[in-house]
Structure formats: structure tokens, C-alpha cells
């Protein structure tokens, strides 16, 4: 007995078929999908239909980004390896075909080398999909400076100026209301040497010269510091599920620690004459490729929308989203692992436009 079973969990769709010989399962993750429509184009039996992506992204329509017609779906799995963001997973007997050599897959990757990474977090901030997490452990501030500081408590008049001026909050006084038994405004003053950066502001601001302090960092800092203590440690993490290999991390990284390999090569063409600057493409693009050039607003002959093609993955979502056909996305090369199956190879090659 062979039967299709369609499971619908929120917007995630799974189409299953189990026979005594083999179990096949196609699952779709709506939150990962970018609405490019490549699966719709590639499906040999027209079982996939792209949903109203603009309405979903811009006006909050509660619909699934694609719909899979289980009556039509033959569970061939071709939609899975062509998805540029891995929103479609196809499994045979519980094993993903991405783990099977005989099936082709797109060659794409994003990596951050921990050896080169200086944990500046630029990539984390720039990533349009919030897929990057940089965890860093900073050295103790006290281990990056050396010096000496001492407050002559006899000379100190407890004015509190140093406490107020200290930029590192290293000086604390024990303020209290004077009594006849203790006729002072403060009973003690202390410097926390873990916090002190030997900036000498306290020394310079003390009205009675009660503070003796010297900074060694400028003259002898190099010799005083233990290089191990000054090291910034950390780790980087890319969430492969949400990452779309757009290349923002590679472009923004100041030390070339991020490396991105893209599956598609191509061209992004915008007809500025046709563009009505509605902004649909800006919102749909998963890679923050497009923007409105603010500095040119209102100028004659200015671009309506600007594209930074280096971040483009040529998925074509913008072309689909454009209501006035002002965008054309060309795919000239598709990098994928080889397959012996001619029909699969043909499908992979058909992604070229």
C-alpha cells in the first residue's frame, strides 16, 4: 500500500510517501524560504506554486511562501538541491539526499576562520539574515595598563572631586554625615586597582595634591604586559540554516577571515526607466543587495534603486517581486557536484537563464 501523507505544521509542509521498499519525504521550512521561486520553476510536475511573497513580506499575509500540491508531487526530490537557501529537504529512508553522493548539490559555503578572526563583530552586525554569532572574551582592563597610585589620606580633604572625575569609577569614598564623634564628611577613600587605568585625572584634579600616581603604560607598557593577558579570545558561529551565502561577512571583514563560495554566477540588471521605486525588491531581497540611494533623491537622472551586486546570490526573488518587470536576474553559471543522472544534470543546468 502506497499512500501520500501530507503534514501541515503551521506553515511547514511535509509530503511523505511510504512503500514497503522505500520511504520518501519532502519537507519545507517556511521561515527559511526567501520566495525566489526556483523550486516552482524546476518542479517537473508543476506541483509547487509560489505564494504571494510581497503580501507575506510587506503586508503580513498569513500564507505559506510556497504551496506543494501533494496530489501532483511525485516526490522526485529535484526541488531540494536547487533551493539556494536549503528550505526544502528531501529524505529517502530518513537520509537527506544532500548526504548522498549520487545526488547533486549546489556548491556553496560560508566560513569564518577563527585563526584570522579578530572578533570585531562587523559581520554579525552586517549579516542580513542574523546568521552570525561572534562570542568574545575581552581581557581584564587592569592587565592592559600598569602604574602606581596612592592617596595620602592625611592630606585628603574628602572633597570628592577625584571620585566624581574618575572615568573608570575606580575611586570610592565612604561618605557620611559628620557627627561630633566623627567630624568628617568621609571616613575613608580607596582606589580599586583593578579598575584604575592610571589616566592621572584624579592627580591633576586634586585641589590639595593628595594623590601620587604614575602611569607606566606609555613608556614601559610593552615590557610590563604579559602578551597572554592582553589577548582577545572568542569564537565565531554561522547558523547554516539561516545563512544564504550572500557574502556580506566576507566583504565587511577587515582581516579577510570570512570566506564565502557562491553557487550561482550571474548578472543583476535593473531598468531604472521602468523602476517606480516601490521598494518591493528591497524588502524581498534576502541579501540586502538593494537600496534607495538617498544622496541622489530627487536629482535628474538619478538611480531609483541601487544594487550592490557583490552581495547578490542570483536567486531571482527580486525579479519575481517587481510589479513592473524592471528587474532581470541572469544566472550564467551554476556550481554543483557532479551526478551520473542525465535528467538531474539537465535540471541543475536548467537553472541557467
Amino acid at each position: 500500500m502506497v499512500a501520500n501523507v501530507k503534514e501541515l505544521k503551521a506553515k511547514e509542509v511535509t509530503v511523505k510517501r511510504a512503500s514497503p521498499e522505500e520511504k520518501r519525504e519532502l519537507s519545507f521550512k517556511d521561515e527559511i524560504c526567501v520566495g525566489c521561486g526556483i523550486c516552482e520553476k524546476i518542479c517537473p510536475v508543476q506541483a509547487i506554486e509560489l505564494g504571494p511573497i510581497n503580501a507575506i513580506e510587506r503586508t503580513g499575509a498569513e500564507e505559506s511562501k510556497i504551496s506543494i500540491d501533494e496530489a501532483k508531487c511525485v516526490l522526485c526530490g529535484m526541488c531540494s538541491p536547487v533551493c539556494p537557501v536549503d528550505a526544502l529537504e528531501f529524505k529517502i529512508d530518513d537520509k537527506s539526499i544532500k548526504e548522498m553522493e549520487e545526488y547533486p548539490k549546489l556548491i556553496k559555503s560560508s566560513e569564518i576562520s577563527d585563526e584570522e578572526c579578530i572578533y570585531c563583530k562587523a559581520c554579525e552586525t552586517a549579516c542580513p539574515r542574523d546568521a552570525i554569532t561572534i562570542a568574545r572574551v575581552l581581557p581584564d582592563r587592569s592587565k592592559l595598563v600598569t602604574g602606581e597610585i596612592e592617596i595620602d589620606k592625611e592630606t585628603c580633604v574628602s572633597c570628592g572631586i577625584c571620585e566624581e572625575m574618575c572615568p573608570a569609577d575606580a575611586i570610592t569614598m565612604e561618605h557620611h554625615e559628620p557627627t561630633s564623634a566623627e567630624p568628617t564628611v568621609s571616613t575613608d577613600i580607596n582606589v580599586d586597582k583593578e579598575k584604575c587605568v592610571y589616566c592621572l585625572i584624579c592627580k591633576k584634579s586634586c585641589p590639595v595634591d593628595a594623590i601620587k600616581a604614575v602611569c607606566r603604560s606609555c613608556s614601559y607598557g610593552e615590557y610590563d604586559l604579559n602578551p597572554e593577558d592582553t589577548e582577545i579570545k572568542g569564537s565565531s558561529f554561522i547558523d547554516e540554516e539561516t545563512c544564504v551565502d550572500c557574502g556580506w561577512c566576507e566583504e565587511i571583514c577587515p582581516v579577510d577571515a570570512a570566506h564565502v563560495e557562491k553557487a550561482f554566477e550571474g548578472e543583476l540588471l535593473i531598468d531604472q526607466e521602468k523602476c517606480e521605486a516601490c521598494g518591493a525588491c528591497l524588502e524581498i531581497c534576502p541579501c540586502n543587495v538593494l537600496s534607495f540611494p538617498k544622496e541622489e533623491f530627487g536629482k535628474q537622472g538619478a538611480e531609483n534603486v541601487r544594487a550592490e551586486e557583490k552581495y547578490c546570490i542570483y536567486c531571482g526573488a527580486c525579479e519575481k517581486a517587481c510589479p513592473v518587470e524592471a528587474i532581470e536576474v541572469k544566472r550564467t553559471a551554476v556550481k554543483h557536484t557532479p551526478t551520473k543522472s542525465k535528467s538531474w544534470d539537465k535540471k541543475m543546468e536548467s537553472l541557467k537563464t
Partner: protein
Amino acid sequence: MVELKVDQDKCLGCGNCVVSCPVNGAISPEAAGGHGPKTEEVIMMVENGLVKLFNVDKCAKCGTCPLFCPTDAIYLE
């Protein structure tokens, strides 16, 4: 499938949808400039103080007009 719809009870007749619609702009460029379209070939126009859909089949469902409508009188559903 979602469609472009209008709730005339909510409409203020401001015309934001008419001038923001990129398809209107492509059909009747003066609409994009903030003026009333010169042809009924556009998707929507203000008539007698209320928005009216003329050619809803031309709507590409880009979701621009709902973003500009102050009263949610035009929407995709």
C-alpha cells in the same frame, strides 16, 4: 490566492494608493508624480471622493499601496 480589495467605508479618498502604485505609475506616469492618472487603464483611481478599482487584474500584488493607506482601506487578502 490573495487579491487586492477595497473597503470604501474606510476610504478617505486621499489618493495615496493611486500615486504610490508602481503599476499605475508605469501606465500613467503623472500618477507617480502625485497627480491624478489621465486614463482609466490604471488599477485604481479616486472617483467621487472614494477609491475605486478599475483594473484589478493588472495588480502585481506588490503590497505597496497598503503600506501608504492611512486607514487600511486598501489591502491584499
